[in-house]
Every structure is written in C-alpha cells, then in structure tokens.
C-alpha cells in the first residue's frame, strides 16, 4: 500500500509545514477585523405630516 510508504518523509514534513506556516496563516488573518460590524440602523427619520400653506 503506497500511501503507507514513508519514503521522502522529511521532505514532505518540511514542505508541508513550510506551506502551512507561510501561506495559510496570512490568509486566515486577513479575515479578522478589529471591530464587529453592526448592521445599519433601519430607523427612518420621523416626519411630520404637512400640507401646502395656502390651503
């Protein structure tokens, strides 16, 4: 079963850890934001009902 063959195990170890430590943490860190985003307030301004002044 070739998947159990440890043959170039040191190369695989070094290379996979190199990728794992160099590339992925920067990608993951890119998704952090210092503040939680809050949804925009859905409140509308209150408006008084009005009519044309000559009526």
């Amino acid at each position, binding site marked *: 079963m070739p998947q159990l063959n440890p043959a170039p195990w040191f190369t*695989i170890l070094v290379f996979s850890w190199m990728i*794992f430590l160099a590339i992925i943490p920067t990608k993951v860190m890119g*998704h952090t934001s210092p503040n939680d985003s809050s949804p925009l307030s859905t409140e509308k301004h209150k408006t008084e009902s009005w009519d044309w002044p000559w009526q």
Partner: protein
Amino acid sequence: MAMSFFDQFASPSYLGIPLIAIAIALPWVLFPLPSLRWVNNRLITIQGWLINRFTNQLMLPLNTGGHKWALLLASLMVFLITINMLGLLPYTFTPTTQLSLNMGLAIPLWLATVIIGLRNQPTVALGDLLPEGTPLPLIPVLIIIETISLFIRPLALGVRLTANLTAGHLLIQLIATAVFVLLPMMPTVAILTATVLFLLTLLEVAVAMIQAYVFVLLLSLYLQENV
C-alpha cells in the same frame, strides 16, 4: 499490466516534479486575501464567516491560555479541509492520504501540547496519568495504560485521517469499476450501482469535512488538558 486498486495512492511525479508538492502548494489561490476596503465579494465573505465562526466554536471550551492557538488551529482546519475536498475531484492526488504527511502534522502538534502542559503545569500534566479515586492495586497498571494511551494519540490522529480518506477513495474506485463492468451485462443493476456511487460520493464529501474537523477538534482537546 495489472492495475492495483492501491495505485491511486502512489505519489505520482510528472516531468520530474512530485505532484504532492503541487497539490500542497497550489490550492491556496482559492483563498483570496480580502481587500482593505469594506466591501467584499461573496467568496471572501463566506470564507471569512466560516473561518471566524469555526474559530469561535473551537475556542469556546478552552481557557484563555489556549486562545493563542486559534490562528494555528484555524489554519490547520483550512489546510486539511481544502486538501481533502480537492482530493475528491477525479484525477487528482490527495496528499492527506499519505501517512507521512498526516503523521508529520500530528506528531509535532501533539508534542507541542504535551510540552506546554509539562512546562506550565507539570503537576497537573503528570496527574493526568492517574485518575482520581483509583483503587490501590490498580495504580501501577493504570499508570502504564494511561502512559500508553498518551503516546498512542499522535499515531491514532495520523492513522485516522489516512485510513478514512484511503477507505473512501478505495470504495469510490471499487464501485465505479463495478458500474463500468456491469454496464454491458446488466444495465439496470449498473444504474442502481451508479446511484449508490453518487450517494457514496456525497458521503465522502461529508467525510472529507468531518475528518478535517475531527483532527483539529482532537488537537484542541489535547490542548485543553494542558492549558
């Protein structure tokens, strides 16, 4: 030429380049960096949401001392789940079916948790080797058993991932071969088998995600004992 079903796990090489290196190095273009502006696209939004929710869930049961591992464990999850899922595409090579890769990830991370425990709280770490309230005659045996179970953890961690992915890929290949063999003889049975193959593929997609999660979850549990 007798093709063995295990040939799919042999690490291939093309034009002198081992494809395991390509399969480990290239998938990360699927994770674009978010821009510094506020508006993201849909891909980045869902990736960021998944990464942040996952990290949140993983860190909930841990002490604050273990929260330093958040970035490492989230990165590990992204690494494993991407490689597992891309490996399910036809004609691709899955690096996580290789025992050497999985043990190369499992042993250093497990060792780090154990060393952290022994350095920061040696009494508690050694106390884990003997559960409280053990009857006196059982104490020597139990310490030996607990020590073995401690040292077998990285082995189980690596072998679990390898065995699950290997078994899934083997089953898919076996049933796909059966569909092709049965098609000229018994088309109805072949169609039924193809349905099973489709359902099995869905299962393997789930397994690819679950096994990546289990790997990271177990590491976080080992960390929890040691912080």
